[in-house]
């Protein structure tokens, strides 16, 4: 697993308090990992901080799954 994926997974596990093995490629933050809409905003804020990038609101809305997040951040950083 890439370094980006490891760091994203760490943030998701810490923030949502879920088991690491639940955080898989297609895991939806809201449907599978129990996030509410405010959690997803906070996850995006945490990603921005960790990776020193800006994720605009319209892009943030497309980040629904763990895989989406890793893909977006990999391309942005």
């Amino acid at each position: 697993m890439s370094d980006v994926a490891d760091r994203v997974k760490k943030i998701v596990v810490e923030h949502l308090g879920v088991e690491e093995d639940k955080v898989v490629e297609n895991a939806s933050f809201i449907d599978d990992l129990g996030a509410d809409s405010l959690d997803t905003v906070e996850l995006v804020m945490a990603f921005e901080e960790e990776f020193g990038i800006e994720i605009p609101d319209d892009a943030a809305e497309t980040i629904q799954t763990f895989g989406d997040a890793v893909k977006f951040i990999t391309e942005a950083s």
Partner: protein
Amino acid sequence: MFDLTGKCALVTGASGGIGGEIAKALHAAGATVGLSGTRVEPLEALAAELGERAHVLPCNLSDPEAVDALPKQAAEAMGSVDILVNNAGITRDQIFMRMSDDEWQSVLDVNLTSTMRLCRGVMRPMMKARWGRIINISSIVGATGNPGQANYAASKAGMVGLTKSIAYEVASRGITANAVAPGFIATAMTDKLTDDQKGKINAQIPANRMGMPEEIAAAVLYLASSEAGYVTGSTLHVNGGMAML
């Protein structure tokens, strides 16, 4: 009780009677205050009176870009914005049948839209900090209506709906959002009324007098405090019993 040491508060309309007292009360409780308003001179006079922990942050609230920039300027000057007090407001009274689009829009822009923009601007850092206080100064008129003030009353009622919705969304993050609704408050504006006019107003108020700006400031201080952490989405009416809501 109500110790705000280490907290930073942004107060709009701090050049006015009520806003100035709010800033003084928060400052006296230990907060660093950012004094915002359009008139620089009274803001600087107030900052000089307060001494340390006071920053002047002029802003024209009818300019959306300036409003969006204000939270960042405040955070740069003070270190953070932990407490936001949206106190600034304007009136452009007119009977409703004659109310122009401009009279409507300008009041909505300054009173309601700028409040929304400032709330939005401070939300991210408050979310991260897991602590925040938003206090929106509404008005008795927002609950009761008032002839000649359809625009002002709509803006003040709108602030209450905005406040409640924000309160819902961020309650789990340690952020509270409340409104304070003053009744008739003695300020430079009401000083101009004749004794006869004042008498008529006082007759409508069970307390039989106008409120003092300090009495609004005390309500704001309470809502800004850590002790008020379980109070959110509420409207604190400070009106001498004029409307018991």
